[in-house]
């Protein structure tokens, strides 16, 4: 132990002076890196922190003070307790969860079902079907919202979960994504399963679906974010407030308490907690999924 350290200590005095400026430079570089990262963080989450601070200020504090005061004089959760009386948070959360989860499940099943023959079977009209499906990506929902609304009225879907879910139950993006995933799997797997007597449905469910799990996760996260954050369609199809999802609920809250910023701030913060918690737990998948989604198309 002692002899090698002796050997290096001999060199140390000559090395150290030249090493010191390098270290200072390194530290300065790190400081600059973290400084920039923190500054951008402030821009990206600052508006939410500002809202959070406002929601924690008591009624006796002037929230319109100028210069603005970021730190509350006395932190209170009173606004949260009071706003819950007017804001049926749990009801809205329940609606949002039902709509998002069912939309995700239907997309996973319907998109991968449709993608399977498009990726791995030969049949007449395959290319036409695929092109027609892809072409739906070109049609903006904003053109369709009027006829879909009229159709939903005819089908009695106004103010129902089905009305919120069905128009988004399959997406061309999802079919495209799953088709790409199925294309990468070797055909020998289908062949050997077929020899073992499996039918097409069994091959799809038992052989292929377990192998495309990463793509299913990507699809699930994309669909979930779309369904969870959707605003325009629920706004059109719902007029019964008990069916409102969280974004619509917060919008109504902001409209009815336009003078009480403490309540609006508290309601807004409560309403984003569920998605922030889900994101915090699954952030790796959110970001990996978005990266893969981009690479794939």
């Amino acid at each position, binding site marked *: 132990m002692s002899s090698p350290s002796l050997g290096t200590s001999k060199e140390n005095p000559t090395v150290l002076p030249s090493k010191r400026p390098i270290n200072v430079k390194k530290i300065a570089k790190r400081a600059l890196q973290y400084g920039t990262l923190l500054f951008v963080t402030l821009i990206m989450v600052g*508006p939410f922190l500002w809202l959070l601070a406002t929601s924690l200020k008591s009624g006796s504090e002037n929230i319109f003070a100028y210069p603005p005061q970021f730190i509350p004089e006395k932190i209170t959760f009173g606004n949260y307790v009071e706003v819950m009386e007017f804001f049926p948070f749990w009801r809205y959360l329940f609606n949002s969860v039902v709509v998002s989860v069912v939309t995700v499940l239907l997309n996973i099943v319907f998109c991968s079902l449709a993608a399977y023959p498009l990726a791995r079977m030969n049949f007449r009209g395959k290319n036409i079907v695929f092109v027609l499906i892809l072409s739906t990506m070109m049609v903006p929902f904003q053109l369709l919202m009027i006829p879909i609304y009229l159709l939903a009225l005819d089908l009695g879907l106004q103010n129902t979960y089905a009305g919120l879910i069905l128009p988004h139950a399959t997406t061309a993006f999802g079919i495209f994504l799953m088709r790409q995933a199925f294309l990468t799997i070797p055909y020998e797997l289908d062949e050997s399963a077929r020899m073992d007597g499996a039918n097409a449905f069994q091959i799809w469910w038992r052989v292929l679906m377990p192998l495309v799990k990463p793509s299913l996760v990507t699809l699930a996260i994309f669909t979930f974010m779309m369904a969870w954050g959707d605003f325009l369609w629920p706004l059109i199809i719902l007029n019964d407030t008990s069916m409102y999802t969280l974004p619509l609920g917060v919008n109504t809250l902001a409209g009815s308490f336009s003078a009480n910023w403490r309540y609006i701030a508290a309601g807004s913060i409560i309403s984003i907690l569920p998605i922030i918690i889900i994101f915090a737990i699954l952030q790796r998948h959110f970001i990996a999924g*978005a990266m893969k989604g981009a690479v794939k198309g």
Partner: protein
Amino acid sequence: MKSNPLTPFLFLIPGVIILGAFIFYPMLNAIWLSFTDYNIVADAEFIGLENYKELFADALFWKVLGQTLLYLIIVVPALVILPIFLAILVNQQVKGIGFFRSAYYVPVVTSMVVVGIAWKWVYADRGILNYILESFGLIDEPINWLTSTSTSIFAVMVVTIWKGLGYYMVIYLAGLQSIPDDLYEAADIDGATKWKQIWHITVPLLMPSIMIVTIMSSISAMKVFEEIYVMTGGGPLNSSKTLVFYIYEEAFDKLQMGYASAAGVVLFVITLIFSVINIKFMSKKESDIKG
């Protein structure tokens, strides 16, 4: 074993029914409605090109169309360029970088309603933005960001850009991570500055991602609605209205379903131009993947 010729169609049925009922049928119906005077109350009557004539004679239509293009011209370049720098920033190998990536992604996962509320508070007359600008001496008195005709649409654009940054950052991050490190090492040895490296190595190799982001951000800028609905309601004096907001109002406030459908068809034609490029680009990518 003989395979049943109907099998492929059994798999396709659920998805195709949904897409047919909620995209193909509505699309044909929208085109039909645009030639009628349908207003929910009375039966639809065919009126030929009347809606289109009325639309093209409406000064407000041209105003919102112009504002939609203004939106594209400002928001798309911002969303193509700024996230590149964010991606470079979070592609550094330092401790805790995962935290920063996630923090920048938070606006993406948050609903636009809450984002709009948060920014309304930032933009308030006696709000934090006015205070910061004043204390740096950039403005003399508070600006009414959302309630003045000259600033409202730009204030909303900032929010659209801010909310999209994280999403496109991640797309660029995927692109950056496919660029081999030794290119930068070689450039370092040659003494190229960071800016030169970005311009001569990063940007050219990031071109596929830049294409994707350009197309995605222009299609979504075309359809902007929520931030306007939440923050300005299209006002003041229609100064922040875009095409989709106009369609929404005509259809669901004024119940002019036929007229609004004509405006929708115009939106469709414009989006089509962007989407055709999109599909072409994607099928090219696909054939690249297949080899």
